[in-house]
């Protein structure tokens, strides 16, 4: 964390090597974050390029009151949301993922549980999926999620609760036995 803050200071002074180092440290997480929204490699790369260009151009605006990665996620999120609004078909892509018949998943081994939740997560709305992504992929705390999404801490908790309820609903609609994992 200290290194990232130091890199930002060097970027402000125009150090391109510092940008390369910051990219090495953070790019994988940022890439996954963007990809989980857009589900398209080319578009993810375009947004990545713009995100790090913005990091370079606006490094002096980083206040240091959060992790650098949280700040970069904020930039990436804004750019991604703008892109989604432009394309406007992302929601359809996310909701039109494979349909599953009820009663299909009565027996659940550990492997199947993993698969079921994987499929159910893909059916969540962007709003709910995003918050779970930040916790389970990017290992963000609620405070960090609050900063990235620009919402109060209590709203983060509420949104996690509703994401969980929605996920349960999706799993039930998929015919998953309630006792399997809740």
């Amino acid at each position: 964390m200290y290194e990232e803050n130091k890199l930002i200071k060097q970027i402000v002074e125009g150090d391109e090597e510092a940008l390369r180092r910051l990219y090495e440290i953070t790019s994988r997480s940022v890439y996954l974050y963007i990809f989980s929204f857009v589900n398209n490699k080319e578009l993810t790369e375009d947004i990545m390029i713009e995100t790090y260009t913005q990091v370079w151009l606006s490094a002096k605006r980083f206040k240091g009151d959060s992790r650098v990665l949280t700040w970069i996620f904020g930039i990436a999120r804004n750019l991604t949301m703008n892109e989604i609004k432009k394309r406007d078909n992302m929601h359809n892509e996310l909701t039109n993922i494979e349909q599953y018949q009820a009663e299909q998943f009565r027996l659940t081994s550990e492997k199947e549980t993993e698969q079921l939740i994987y499929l159910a997560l893909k059916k969540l709305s962007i709003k709910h999926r995003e918050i779970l992504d930040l916790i389970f992929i990017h290992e963000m705390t609620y405070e960090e999620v609050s900063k990235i999404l620009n919402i109060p801490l209590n709203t983060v908790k509420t949104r996690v609760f509703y994401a969980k309820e929605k996920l349960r609903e999706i799993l039930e609609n998929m015919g998953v036995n309630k006792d399997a994992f809740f």
Partner: protein
Amino acid sequence: MLSSKKLEDIRAILPLYAKGLISDEKAEEVEKFIFDENLLQRELKFWNGVKAGYDKIKKDFPEPNNNIYAKICTQIQERKRIKQSIWSLYSLNPKFSFGLIMFQFLLIIGLLFYIFNLKYEYRTLSTTEIRAETGYTINVIFKENAREKDIRELIKKIDGRIVDGPSKTGLYVIGIKEKDKKELALDILSKSDIVLFAENAY
């Protein structure tokens, strides 16, 4: 027995607990309560399932392309070039900069000159056209509360027109074309409620 508030607090942090994102102290607290609470055990089971689902999702994510960083550098250089070319118009070309400064300076001076020289004029009832006087004239002073509409009607009634005025004292000179109408006009003006003074002009 857990209080409902404590139960909700623990429930809220279970996703973080499942992912190992809380402090050891908090984790111990969660474990202590989970042991006795069936609801928390079920919830944790659910979140562990979510964690397993995400582990699978992570495996499926593609790797970023190796050339992204090179593209970032190219884009940054391009932005720098554009920025420099815009500033070069101002900073590198002295003639252009000087011209721009002079233009702005003259514009400001011009605007200030215009603003300070604006004349706020008041329109008063007066002659509408200038022509040589051929008829007879009457001096008239209207009362202060006389309305423009009433004055116009009165002048129309006597078939006259304003040929001069108002003077500083509010004196109008009304022209009458025909001599035989002059006395009648004078009579009408004298009796009017809006006229303070009416007399032959010599």
